[in-house]
């Protein structure tokens, strides 16, 4: 069964937009604010499926 093609340009925040504010706990339990953590530097935000399986 072939997968339907996806237009990733329209999935999630768009190119040219400011990435939304994100505040989430990290692996040590510390609350991380994405943009504050970048401290004015470029960043890669990686979404992955699972660290468990």
């Amino acid at each position, binding site marked *: *069964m*072939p*997968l339907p*093609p*996806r237009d*990733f*340009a329209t*999935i*999630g*925040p*768009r*190119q*040219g*937009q*400011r*990435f*939304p504010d*994100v505040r*989430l*706990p*990290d*692996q*040590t*339990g*510390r609350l*991380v604010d*994405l*943009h504050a*953590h*970048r401290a*004015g*530097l*470029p*960043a*890669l*935000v*990686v*979404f*992955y*499926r*699972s*660290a*468990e*399986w």
Partner: protein
Amino acid sequence: MAILSEFAANHGITYPLLSDEGSQVMRALGLINARVQEDHAAYGIAPNPRHVGLPYPGVFVLDRDGVVTEKRFHESYRERDTGAGLIAQALAVVTPPGTVAQADGMAVSARAWLDSPTYAFFQRVTLTIELSIAAGHYVYGDQREEGRPVSIEIDPIAGVEVGPTRWSKPRGASGTDGPPWAHDGIVRATVPLTFAAAPGGGDHVLGVTVRYQAGDDGPRLGPGSIRLAVPIKEAPLVGRSLPTATATG
């Protein structure tokens, strides 16, 4: 969080791994794959009640202002860049290579390296080939009547898919005097390699051939080639096992 803590320890990760328990942030960002069960079926993965609230795997590249400059998503969830390759390509930070293969040819010196010393199942590793062209010389970067264009060939290895070669911008492309599609100075090419064979493929040595024809202001030199051997090891699986189901296409 305990899962992330263990994962970070197993892989030596020091950057923040954020926990989006319940997937609320990913849902708000519009990144949840609502058709994950159907997608899994297409890949031959058995239904699993835990497979809910999964995002499309992918990478956002943010500039200094936090603006998205690039989105890197792959159609297949199994394909992914190496960490070093991602940083090199997305942030233009050239990581100092580990092992560098080096060889010389007529008027051209070649170096080649991989962005990762190891590969894992379905990982995409980028091979970089750097040509240093002797002063006053050039190589043809595209097909022309007068000369053979520079090209990269990788000796076939079972299970290794070789993607298209990408060259850094040719110099002199708009020039009216010089050869219109010639490279001079230092030129780099990248070749994506996807290791699609089942685990257990073992270590490899990539055989790389650079074919080119060099010229200068005098008579054109004959076609040349340079051979490079680039080693890569298979990475051991860390802290996990692979799914047993396989795609049947």
